[in-house]
């Protein structure tokens, strides 16, 4: 299953299903994932959703020349580390965290403004469970001027 999360300039784009779970997801994005952006300045957007093992989500965002960015992808317990790829408009994979020990962050600076696609995937864990595991996954962005 794949979900698309639009990311815009100013405002959060969050998906919600179960309100109680969602409240936890909000707290996770705000309290845990945001810390991964330090020392970058949080861009003000909280993108988070409840995902299940094996599920994918993607997000499109415009990044501007003259800025440095940090992308942070976090998964709450009991999920394993989240896989993510960054893809350009020509479908070239620019970054794949599976080649970097499933790193949670990636720092980059675009030479020119670009719309990029970020694809997240929750890997299926080896943990014995009756049902596939679900939890909050957040993707957040920080920036600083050059």
């Amino acid at each position, binding site marked *: 299953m794949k979900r698309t999360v639009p990311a815009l300039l100013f405002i*959060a784009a969050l*998906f919600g299903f179960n309100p109680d779970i969602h409240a936890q997801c909000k707290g996770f*994005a705000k309290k845990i994932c945001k810390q991964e952006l330090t020392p970058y300045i949080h861009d003000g957007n909280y993108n988070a959703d409840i995902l299940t093992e094996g599920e994918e989500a993607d997000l499109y965002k415009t990044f501007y*020349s003259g800025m440095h960015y940090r992308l942070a992808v976090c998964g709450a317990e009991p999920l394993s580390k989240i896989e993510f790829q960054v893809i350009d408009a020509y479908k070239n994979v620019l970054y794949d965290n599976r080649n970097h020990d499933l790193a949670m962050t990636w720092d980059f600076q675009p030479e020119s403004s670009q719309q990029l696609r970020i694809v997240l995937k929750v890997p299926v864990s080896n943990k014995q469970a009756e049902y596939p595991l679900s939890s909050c996954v957040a993707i957040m962005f920080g920036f600083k001027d050059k």
Partner: protein
Amino acid sequence: MLIKSAGAEYNEQLLNPLKNVDKYTTNKSMALNLGIYTTDLSFCSLFDQTQTSLSYMEATRKLAEGMDIRDAIDEETMIRLEDNLNNRDVVMDIISETFLNSSSYLKENERQAVAAIVLVGGWIEGLYLATQLVGEKPIEGNKLVDRIAEQKLSFSIVDRMLEDNRVNEKGEENLDIVSLINDLQGLRNAYNGIIVQTSAVKVEADNTTNVSTLKSQTKITVTPEAFTGLRDAVNSLRSNFIL
């Protein structure tokens, strides 16, 4: 932030006047103007206009109440804002949280389409402020004009989001979204006159700084006529939104 880094200056005359808040009675106009007032709020906070920020926060609270977004902007939020008016970072944080609360509340209650309309209102206001701030300055080599042209890239994201919300899970068409898609046609036409070409990206990793450079080229072609057309389209759209 993009506006400020592109060298723009604060101009309060550009904001949607606070007295307009009582005009917004339909779901669509309330949602659009919640987005508009929040962008205005971010704009004045960015330039440290503390008292105006507080007034705009009050206006967003009024609209949020009208839309039954309970608790998104409560008394505690207003007190926190007042207490931190001189600390821009905290103020921006409070604004972000307010949107987090509003947006998630709407989506928890199956009002995703309304959340999308709020986003469009905020985006259009950002475009309006930016196009107005260019003023009579030449467009060639103008960083702010380039930033505005680059919003063509974000427009495709806006279109995709509206299409995703056009029909609800029961298969019913959302008339507010349909009318908003139509409202944006003039802007779509105006952006067709602006060319933004991006090349494929090559990644250059720096193992010392751990910062990767995305090497690519973007060619932006904006004629003075195309820019004027875009500014007029944004102006007309925003005038319709603020009523």
